[in-house]
């Protein structure tokens, strides 16, 4: 549990709820933003039974490791590959994604490879240099970011419009249904990859205890202290 969780929501009950929804949104393959609007989606997707496609091969896992490690490479702390993020991504796709999302993810792995070959003279992602890999992912990331920015502006506009309407005394919709809409990015495989890489890395032992700081039992609460410029305190399960 992190301070991020306390931030947007509230009491213990709600903190855990938000935490869960954050996770769920990640598990749904990024159907919702992980961020300030994530928990709002109130996920209740009716999904078909788990069937699970083909298992990911060792080569697939190695490929996912390289994708994750391009997003989160070794710096002064170990990177995503060291944290076995590829295996985590494969597990999550198999165990938690809907068949539709699993297909998007697997097709995305192929699409990324094809993009690499097209751009880099026939070299697959695995064959590409770290610089070439980074360039590929940066382009995909830019696309996602522009989409997210648009979504956030929409959400803000809706919120402002709601407040204005209320100030003008317009009647309330007669329900307790969610008023926010879950965003569905048009091309979401990279979003899935980035989300799973981030989740896998920052909740791994390396990500929590080396990239971030983790104290199992802090023993006290200091509600307001000078920030020492060091990494964030990681949360609990």
């Amino acid at each position: 549990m992190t301070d991020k969780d306390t931030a947007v929501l509230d009491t213990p009950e709600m903190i855990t709820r938000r935490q869960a929804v954050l996770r769920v949104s990640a598990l749904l393959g990024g159907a919702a933003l992980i961020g300030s609007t994530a928990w709002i989606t109130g996920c209740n997707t009716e999904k078909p039974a788990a069937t699970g496609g083909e298992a990911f091969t060792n080569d697939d896992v190695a490929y996912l490791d390289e994708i994750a490690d391009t997003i989160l490479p070794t710096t002064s702390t170990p990177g995503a590959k060291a944290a076995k993020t590829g295996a985590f991504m494969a597990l999550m796709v198999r165990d938690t994604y809907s068949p539709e999302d699993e297909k998007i993810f697997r097709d995305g792995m192929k699409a990324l490879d094809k993009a690499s070959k097209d751009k880099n003279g026939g070299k697959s992602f695995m064959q590409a240099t770290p610089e070439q890999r980074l360039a590929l992912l940066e382009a995909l990331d830019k696309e996602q970011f522009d989409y997210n920015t648009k979504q956030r502006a929409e959400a803000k506009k809706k919120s402002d419009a709601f407040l204005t309407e209320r100030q003008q005394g317009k009647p309330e919709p007669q329900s307790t249904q969610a008023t926010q809409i879950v965003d569905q990015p048009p091309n979401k495989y990279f979003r899935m990859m980035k989300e799973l890489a981030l989740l896998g890395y920052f909740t791994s032992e390396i990500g929590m205890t080396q990239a971030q700081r983790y104290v199992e039992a802090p023993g006290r609460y200091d509600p307001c202290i000078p920030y020492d410029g060091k990494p964030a305190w990681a949360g609990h399960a």
Partner: protein
Amino acid sequence: MQTQEYDAIVVGSGISGGWAAKELTEKGLKVLVLERGKNIEHIKDYVNATKGPWEYPHRGGRTRAMEELYPVLKRDYPLNETNLDYWASDKDSPYTEVKRFDWFRGYHVGGRSLMWGRQSYRHSDFDFEANAKEGVAVDWPIRYAEISPWYDYVETHAGINGSIEGMPQLPDGKFLPPMRLNCGEQMVADKANKIFGPHRRIIPGRSANLTQNHDGRTQCQYRNACWLGCPYGAYFSSQSSTLPHAAKTGRMTLKPYQIVSEVLYDKNAKRATGVRAMDALSNEMMDYKAKVVFLCASTLNSTWLLMRSATDVWPGGLGSSSGELGHNLMDHHFRAGAQGNLEGLDDKYVFGRRPNGFYIPRYRNLFGDKRGYLRGFGYQGGAGRDDWGRAVAELGVGGKFKDAMAMPGGWNIGATAFGEMLPNHNNKITLDPNKKDKWGMPVLAIDCATGENEHAMRRDMQVDMAELLNAAGVKDVTVYDAGYFPGDGIHEMGTARMGRDPKTSVLNSHNQVWDAQNVFVTDGSCMVSAACVNPSLTYMALTARAADFAVNELKRRNI
């Protein structure tokens, strides 16, 4: 069929059952506690309590296989990898949803006291008087003065942290030191509390987490992992707080896996003689006899039990003569509020994970305020710095991005309102004549919906928080309504309400069933209105009060 005899039987071992067990045993009674589910032993059975978060294969999340097994639980946060053992199996515990009702249950020793949110607030006379003043449902048969000493009593034992605020709508209690507001919350509180006056204020949340060593239990270690079970016993649960005291008397017998199927009723003596139970593992039936029976099986299940009892006298069951048994189901509607970003605090941080937040007590329709709806809501919220989760929505891949995302992000603040839901006769539970569970017992059909009053309130739940945050200088404020279905609040209440008149209520002012005065119902079933505060503390106080009354009545041979 075998029979065993006790002075008292307590059905259920959660927050209310634990208190009944403690009070009745400490007052000298030989008490049998029957729990329908498995035992969970304090500390020993908290198997995940000290696990590293990285040790869960899915890092605490949920799989599709889990969603298959838990079609109800998956609707909200409880379906997860970290404490799934503490939630009742949806497959084994079916119910019928006439309308969608999210019922999240804990069928084991300790019940939901193991997983509860621990927020602990008193009702005030604004709450106890509201029904009578507004002509809604029936009047509470008690007032604050009658329950106040019992709030004192249970708070003193349970260990509730909080600050003394002198706000009439949220009475102060016997508190351990508060868990303090953090920089972000304090900054907003300082500004907002000046602007909005004494009745609409941000105060520290009050929770059942120990801020000092207390009653042989260790103080909170600020892990914020309460829902895994606390190895320090630092939050109130039946396991950490009430059952150990009951066990210490040597007068408690605790039996897990006993599904009580009916209260045994002697129609000539007009009193209960005990209960009938089925062993959940062997399906063997057993009768247990006692002078007094406490039903603390949780809101809907205590009523289910009453409906199955004394049906030879009343077809609708024990307590149904009023026509109100099963009616007036309530919850708190929530998940509407506002949030925003805080500037000017990037050089500030916190240490430790506080299992608590801030609270804004109800101010609507009080102190001269008049809205187009009845009652009001309180806010629960918190401030903090963003973590790596922000990275998904941010532009970036690569080493610099990774190192930046490992640092704390900006501060933000947000809150959701918890709104009072009015008692409504049409919101009801009945026995489904067509469906049985795997033990052959009929299941409940739940027919409950929010009404116009709740819908109208949700506007203010959003707008008011935005207004407060904007006034306090918070940036990028947005409102939200994340949607709500009855049951979501996990504060289900009512269906066997207290009252002043046996014609319109199931229980009297001491939680006695009007039609069988040696049967007490002291869990959430007894609630006459919901107020907008988290209800568990009130169940504790009502249970301790009823237990004291029951023992005195036994001594006087009145029951």
